[in-house]
């Protein structure tokens, strides 16, 4: 640090979002007196043009060389302010953003005094850190000009075609033997009444013949390593027993096969063979041997005219490198068997709407003729049960399926159009016909004589051979009603496709509370995941209709190509490096690194900048201080702690170190949801808690913390989650040191955090504060003694 630091502090009011909960003028006033602070100003919107202009003029007038912005979460506008720094000729790493919105004003509403004290502490910490910030330069990585699309439903097909047509090679991976997804099972689609197959099949065929698309069906994703711009993906092509290059889909194998199992594509309404084609329009048009049911009698292999069958197929692993990934793995129906009053799975004539799609399909189990599943008889009267499991806080899922109003109205019309004497009754809670043409579609169903009863079905029982008695209340009449039907169609809640959570873990992206993937921003970044260069679209983000799925897929493809087209990606400067002269070659860091990024060469540690994810776990391991994590140096970290703790916030003071990817993010979500926790919790952002060693924790206590909270990614949550293990390992050693020093080690708490569980984190904060409050103050003598033991810190 040759030059003297001249810090400017800029406190954003966020149009009241911050200033209603924090006295921003008091914060500025306090900051004026701190060492190194040249100017402190508050303003209504710091991120706006006038706000940025004001910062610019202050930088010039006061010759500032460090900027502290106290505003919303750095996740929101760190980039905005860093860009502004660049235009001023300042290195963007000389910026410190302090979170006064999500983690202060929004989390402590109604406690302005305490929140203001907390804000002063946090800003002082920011100023102290800013004074020791160092300029850093980023490096660049070439982006692979290829894509991986996971999921071969309409969303994945759309994204793959869009990217392929832009000229990018695409690997389209689908776990079933054919692409098409749920849409391939549908008959007609609302509100246009197009035939689903007629609009889908041409797209599927296009996928099959596009030279840029490498279609990989019966394939699953095994693992993903690397990072944005160069993801290394391992795939497993499951054994399908048939060589796709040789098979001509003549079907001889299937005709001969004697094994019969329920046909999943037709919802188990008929049977298929162990050697089968998912459906006639399958792409690729290739048979598959279902090895779960195949008896390996060998006859199919004998008769196959092309000798395409290999019953010893073991599948194979394939590895590919791609620049970006699109995830479009869709949805599944909820299992309605637990709703015993509907009798689904007990009464044969209680089915789901997806069964009905197959019953109405010309290539379905009945050739498109609507028959009762129990006896094949005619269906004269049928009932629809909307919201089966949806909007159900008791046994189902809380959200709306978004499609069951419209598809039930569609099916009712298809049935009435095809079978003029059929009577259809819809039992509903609300009809949500929000899309273009939807309300008109509802009206046309009314005109066709569909009966609408406003009441949720309460129970279904058998009232005779295959006849079903349905009970509900007609809530508009205010009377319980009952009626008899030949068929009852349940409209099930839509849930994430099986394996969504595992896939998210492999890709290190986040799930929402509902189990669907989470987008980067629900409004403004709807098709970005929380990880760079992983894009998302379709029902994997929550239930939606075909049009919306296609729109998102197009968006994901567009965002993906924008990313890849740039050709290069900035590699974070926040990585570890070794001071060669100091390194003694002990190898501690090599052993601790969870990502295998450090090796020894000529007796000195060397960090691979591509592999290093910047967790910081290696730094405390180094006994000779040869390792440094850039932008999270010891000088910065100790300065930050000192700054926060020197301003006395309300006791007990809890210093909460949260990893930036997961726990810090969860703390932001707490604020966003306006959930309150005590203002005693002062959050410090760290790359991961593994960055902290014994010395850091002891220092926090010595300098005045009454409790230290470590929050880090739950196993599998985020690319850096592997570093939590390091922290857990260090805990016992640190606890021992605390107990020896006369500080109860229960004052140190570690929590594994999972973003969807952010409410739990808020609770944990509150509980920890009350636990520490009950324990009472720490003996000042003990603090002093520990400080002496630690010795000097940078």
């Amino acid at each position, binding site marked *: 640090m040759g030059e003297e630091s001249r810090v400017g502090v800029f406190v954003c009011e966020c149009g009241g979002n911050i200033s209603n909960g924090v006295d921003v003028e008091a914060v500025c006033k306090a900051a004026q007196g701190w060492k190194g602070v040249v100017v402190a100003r508050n303003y209504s919107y710091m991120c706006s043009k006038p706000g940025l202009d004001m910062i610019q003029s202050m930088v010039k007038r006061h010759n500032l060389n460090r900027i502290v912005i106290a505003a919303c979460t750095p996740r929101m506008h760190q980039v905005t302010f860093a860009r502004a720094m660049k235009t001023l000729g300042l290195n963007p790493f000389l910026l410190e953003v302090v979170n006064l919105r999500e983690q202060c004003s929004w989390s402590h509403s109604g406690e302005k005094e305490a929140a203001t004290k907390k804000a002063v502490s946090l800003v002082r910490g920011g100023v102290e850190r800013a004074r020791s910030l160092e300029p850093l330069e980023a490096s660049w990585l070439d982006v692979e000009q290829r894509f991986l699309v996971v999921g071969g439903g309409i969303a994945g097909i759309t994204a793959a075609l869009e990217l392929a047509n832009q000229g990018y090679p695409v690997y389209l991976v689908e776990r079933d033997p054919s692409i098409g997804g749920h849409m391939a099972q549908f008959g007609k689609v609302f509100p246009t009444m197009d035939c689903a197959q007629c609009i889908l099949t041409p797209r599927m065929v296009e996928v099959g013949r596009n030279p840029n698309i490498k279609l990989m069906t019966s394939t699953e994703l095994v693992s993903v390593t690397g990072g944005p711009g160069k993801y290394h993906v391992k795939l497993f092509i499951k054994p399908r027993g048939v060589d796709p290059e040789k098979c001509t889909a003549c079907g001889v194998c299937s005709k001969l096969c004697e094994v019969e199992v329920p046909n999943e594509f037709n919802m188990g309404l008929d049977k298929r063979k162990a050697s089968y084609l998912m459906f006639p329009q399958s792409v690729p048009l290739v048979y598959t041997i279902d090895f779960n049911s195949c008896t390996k009698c060998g006859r199919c292999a004998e008769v196959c005219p092309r000798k395409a069958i290999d019953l010893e197929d073991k599948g194979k692993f394939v590895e590919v490198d791609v620049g970006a990934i699109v995830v479009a793995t869709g949805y599944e129906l909820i299992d309605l068997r637990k709703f015993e009053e509907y009798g689904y799975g007990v009464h044969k004539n209680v089915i789901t709407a997806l069964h009905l799609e197959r019953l109405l399909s010309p290539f379905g189990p009945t050739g498109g003729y609507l028959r009762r599943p129990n006896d094949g008889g005619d269906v004269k009267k049928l009932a629809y049960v909307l*919201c089966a499991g949806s*909007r159900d806080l008791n046994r189902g899922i809380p959200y709306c399926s978004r499609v069951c109003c419209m598809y039930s109205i569609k099916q009712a019309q298809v049935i009435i159009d095809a079978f003029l004497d059929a009577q259809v009754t819809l039992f509903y*809670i609300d009809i949500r016909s929000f899309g273009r043409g939807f309300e008109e579609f509802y009206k046309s169903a009314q005109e066709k004589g569909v009966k609408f009863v406003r009441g949720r079905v*309460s*129970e279904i029982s058998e009232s005779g051979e295959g006849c079903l008695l349905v009970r509900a*209340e*007609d*809530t508009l009449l205010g009377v*319980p009603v009952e009626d008899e039907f030949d068929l009852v169609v349940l409209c099930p809640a839509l849930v994430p496709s099986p394996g969504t959570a595992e896939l998210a873990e492999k890709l290190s992206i986040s799930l929402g509370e509902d189990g669907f993937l989470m987008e980067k921003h629900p409004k403004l970044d709807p098709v970005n995941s929380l990880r760079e260069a992983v894009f998302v679209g379709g029902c994997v983000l929550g239930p939606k209709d075909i049009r919306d799925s296609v729109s998102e897929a197009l968006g994901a493809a567009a965002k993906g190509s924008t990313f890849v087209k740039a050709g290069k990606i900035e590699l974070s400067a926040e990585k570890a490096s070794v001071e060669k002269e100091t390194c003694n070659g002990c190898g501690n860091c090599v052993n601790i690194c969870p990502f295998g990024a450090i090796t020894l060469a000529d007796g000195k540690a060397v960090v691979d900048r591509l592999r290093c994810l910047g967790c910081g776990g290696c730094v405390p391991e180094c006994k000779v201080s040869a390792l440094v994590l850039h932008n999270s140096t010891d000088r910065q970290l100790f300065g930050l702690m000192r700054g926060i703790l020197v301003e006395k916030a309300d006791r007990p003071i809890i210093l909460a170190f949260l990893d930036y990817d997961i726990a810090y993010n969860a703390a932001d979500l707490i604020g966003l949801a306006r959930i309150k926790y005590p203002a005693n919790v002062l959050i410090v952002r760290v790359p991961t808690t593994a960055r902290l060693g014994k010395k850091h924790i002891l220092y926090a206590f010595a300098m005045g913390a009454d409790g230290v909270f470590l929050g880090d990614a739950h196993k599998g949550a985020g690319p850096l989650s592997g570093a939590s293990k390091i922290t857990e390992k260090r805990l016992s050693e640190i606890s021992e040191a605390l107990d020896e020093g006369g500080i109860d080690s229960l004052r140190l708490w570690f929590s594994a955090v999972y973003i969807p569980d952010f409410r739990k984190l808020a609770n944990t904060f509150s509980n920890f504060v009350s636990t520490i409050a009950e324990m009472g103050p720490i003996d000042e003598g003990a603090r002093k003694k520990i400080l002496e033991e630690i010795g000097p810190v940078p």
Partner: protein
Amino acid sequence: MSVRRETLDLRKTDSDFVKRVAESGGEKILLCVQCGTCSGGCPAGRRTAYRTRQVIRRALTGLKDEVLSSQDIWLCSTCYTCLERCPRGINVTDVILILRNLAVQAGFMLKPHKDVSAYLLRTGHAVPIIDKYKALRKELKLPELPPTTHSYPEALDEVRRIANKTGFDKLIGFEG
């Protein structure tokens, strides 16, 4: 409940009523979407004018006197079917019991309930033992009288003291 003939003036409803129900353990009724699952499957409602959903609706609207004075809330057989099935997870049956408590506190109580309660204060039992059961107990080698106020008449005094302290005796018009 009869059909209303005039406009309901929402300014005259009691907006605190639902808060009181909520505070007494019925806070989930705020989540009600009036789907009718409760009344559609209600065995009591199939034979009487009892409409669970409408009781909840009236409570949410703040029609306090109408809810508490109505005989409807006493028609529930507490079979808990509605609570099992309610998609909003509302403890419907408990809400009905809360409403009964509030009704009683407000002085709305049917004569049979008062009579039964009076019996309780008079004998310590809503249903005192009869000779038939005394004989049955004997046959089963049990003491003829159960270990209740039947065996310990002095405990009856305590029961009455509780009733007196809580004002329950006045509510039911019990005069010793």
